[in-house]
């Protein structure tokens, strides 16, 4: 019945709007006859045909909503990957492939399900990563800056967290006997990855040197030590990212010449090795490449003292480090050996940092690499038993503006169309007689022109330059260009609007619509039946 109704409606809409054959029951004979196209748009137009095909594909897509239908779950988090970032990255990737860009589809844009996530923290309209990631992996929203505790916990107040501890999807997966992995291009102790395995009322307690006296007195421990001492199941199987400095003493200098942060004298890397005698610790590309996924079940990779490099700068890393897609592939090869399935969280952490620095080039390259990592997952798993979710923790004040012509370089100056709709040869000038870029920032450090020899986060070495600048002779598409910003701040800020959720696999349909961010956990829990399986295994 439903199918018949839809079919009839479809025919009616097609007839009325596309063939130009308007019904004439109410027609006033004195009115002129509307122009009628002689083209059969239903058979000759690529947009129409693609749209029709899209409907057919959607009709064929199975809705697997059975509890526990997902053996595996992969949660991809683009830190700070706002909707505008996705749009710009799509165009950027398409243009890198020689296309105009706008029509390009990132890997996750091909997923059958999309929705929105409301990102606010319980105490902030515009959120931070600690509260948002806690919501996604625990199913409960909390305060900004707080990891793994409910909203009654006060930030940086250890005692207030007592009794507020939340259970995470990684903990449940481990209890259920699944393999688990946490990957990030940020420090592995940074808020987003930390929310998967730790409880800390203060996101900055990454190692003991930042713990307050109150924290120590009330039994709070630092995030790095919680990672190594993670006690659920057989421990997290694959951990890879940056943040090595939080795992060894300040008196020690690492392989890349950087000091540790710990003041308690503990070398947590040695402790991890002692705990997992068959595991492999790696710190560089060579070590990473040597990992034999077929024979190894535990991997600890710390590839940088602080955050890993931006994708643009990765080749310049001292010891060499793997890309996010390489880490994703290696992790899947290791985790997929478990018959009970796996849970993997993959964060592209430096999209956020590129935005904070006001450097769209690095943002978009990292987003494209994030896209590659997702494609790796799509290619590597059985989508009939694997739920893949791609989302962001929050947005950024990154905008696309003006009326650039189709195919205008996404990082370029705006060139509009003429009155006939054809592309102009010259860029358009604003009221101040200066050109402007399509992408820009509402706030932040603002303009800088470092050319193609720039280094990551170089912008922090120079003062604010908010407002308008003459860009006619500036290489605005170079990776050292930093877009203009309106409000001068020493760091560009997060934004408060919703972010996208993209999903495929069993349970994906649970994420249609607009959701509280905490609903993501509940979709995962239903699809993989984590709580019941964890309880059954105890």
């Amino acid at each position: 019945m439903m199918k018949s109704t839809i079919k009839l409606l479809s025919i009616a809409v097609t007839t009325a709007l596309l063939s130009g054959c308007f019904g004439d029951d109410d027609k006033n004979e004195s009115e002129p006859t509307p122009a009628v196209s002689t083209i059969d748009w239903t058979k000759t137009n690529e947009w129409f045909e693609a749209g029709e095909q899209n409907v057919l594909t959607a009709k064929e897509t199975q809705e697997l909503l059975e509890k526990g239908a997902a053996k595996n779950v992969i949660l991809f988090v683009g830190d700070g990957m706002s909707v505008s970032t996705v749009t710009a990255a799509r165009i950027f990737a398409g243009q890198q492939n020689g296309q105009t860009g706008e029509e390009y589809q990132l890997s996750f844009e091909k997923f059958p399900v999309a929705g929105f996530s409301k990102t606010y923290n319980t105490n902030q309209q515009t959120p931070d990563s600690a509260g948002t990631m806690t919501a996604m992996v625990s199913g409960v929203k909390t305060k900004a800056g707080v990891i793994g505790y409910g909203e009654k916990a006060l930030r940086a107040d250890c005692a207030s967290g007592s009794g507020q501890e939340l259970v995470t999807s990684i903990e449940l997966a481990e209890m259920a006997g699944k393999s688990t992995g946490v990957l990030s291009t940020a420090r592995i102790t940074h808020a987003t990855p930390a929310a998967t395995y730790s409880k800390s009322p203060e996101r900055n307690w990454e190692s003991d040197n930042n713990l307050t006296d109150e924290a120590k007195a009330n039994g709070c421990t630092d995030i790095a030590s919680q990672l190594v001492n993670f006690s659920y199941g057989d421990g997290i199987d694959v951990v890879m990212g940056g943040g090595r400095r939080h795992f060894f003493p300040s008196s020690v200098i690492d392989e890349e010449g950087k000091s540790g942060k710990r003041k308690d004298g503990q070398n947590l890397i040695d402790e991890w090795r002692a705990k997992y005698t068959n595991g492999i610790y790696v710190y560089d590309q060579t070590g990473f490449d040597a990992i034999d996924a077929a024979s190894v079940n535990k991997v600890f990779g710390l590839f940088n003292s602080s955050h890993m490099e931006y994708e643009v700068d990765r080749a310049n890393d001292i010891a060499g480090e793997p890309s996010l897609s390489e880490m994703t592939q290696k992790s899947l090869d290791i985790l997929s050996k478990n018959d009970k399935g796996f849970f993997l969280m993959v964060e592209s952490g430096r999209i956020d940092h590129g935005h904070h620095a006001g450097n769209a080039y690095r943002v978009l390259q990292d987003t494209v690499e994030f896209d590659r990592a997702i494609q790796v997952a799509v290619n590597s798993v059985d989508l009939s038993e694997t739920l893949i979710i791609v989302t962001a923790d929050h947005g950024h004040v990154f905008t696309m503006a003006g009326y650039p012509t189709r195919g205008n370089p996404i990082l370029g100056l705006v060139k509009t169309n003429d009155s006939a709709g054809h592309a102009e040869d010259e860029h358009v000038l604003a009221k101040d007689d200066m050109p402007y870029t399509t992408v820009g920032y509402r706030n932040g450090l603002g303009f800088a022109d470092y050319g193609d020899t720039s280094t990551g986060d170089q912008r922090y070495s120079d003062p604010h330059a908010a407002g308008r600048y003459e860009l006619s002779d500036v290489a605005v598409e170079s990776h050292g260009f930093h877009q203009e910003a309106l409000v001068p701040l020493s760091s560009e800020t997060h934004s408060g609007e919703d972010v996208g959720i993209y999903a495929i696999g069993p349970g994906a349909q649970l994420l249609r619509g607009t959701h509280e961010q905490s609903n993501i956990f509940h979709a995962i829990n239903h699809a993989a039946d984590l709580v019941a399986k964890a309880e059954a295994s105890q």
Partner: protein
Amino acid sequence: MKNKCFFIVITLLYAECLFAGIKTDTKSIVSQRAYYRVIDSELQGKPKSYTLTVWMTGNMLALEKAGNSSIALWHNWQTSKPTLFQVFKEHDYRIEFERIHTQKHQRLLAQLQALLQDGSFVQRATINNKQLILQRLIKDDMVELQINRWSDYKTYDYADIGDNEADPVLAKLIHQGFIQKI
């Protein structure tokens, strides 16, 4: 004006690569602080002077301009990968700039290298048309104590500043601009 003067100093000392060229053995460094009088002939058309204090230990080097609340401090300054901290004395806060390397900074730091010879400070130097004249050199335990005190300040990574606006001190620094003007 304070900001301008201070950032000249910060900029001079920002990058790490300069220090890779220093041959001084870490163990041979005696903790010391040097007070330089800086004569800047470019300030508002007539010469003006101010005092810079350079604090140095085997692995830490700090630069302080009299009257300025912010100090530049390098950890592992004799290695090829030192880490820069901006220390805010009034707030007991530090911001860590782990990897900011630019050619500009390397050039400027190379000029600063001239201040050090055989593990000690030179009497006179000229950097960017500014004359530096050593006024006083003190070698005592105070240097080590003071640098250790600064090292214990609450520290944030520069890349994490934007995620920590809930910290009122940091929020103030963000809004006022923690990066000083050149």
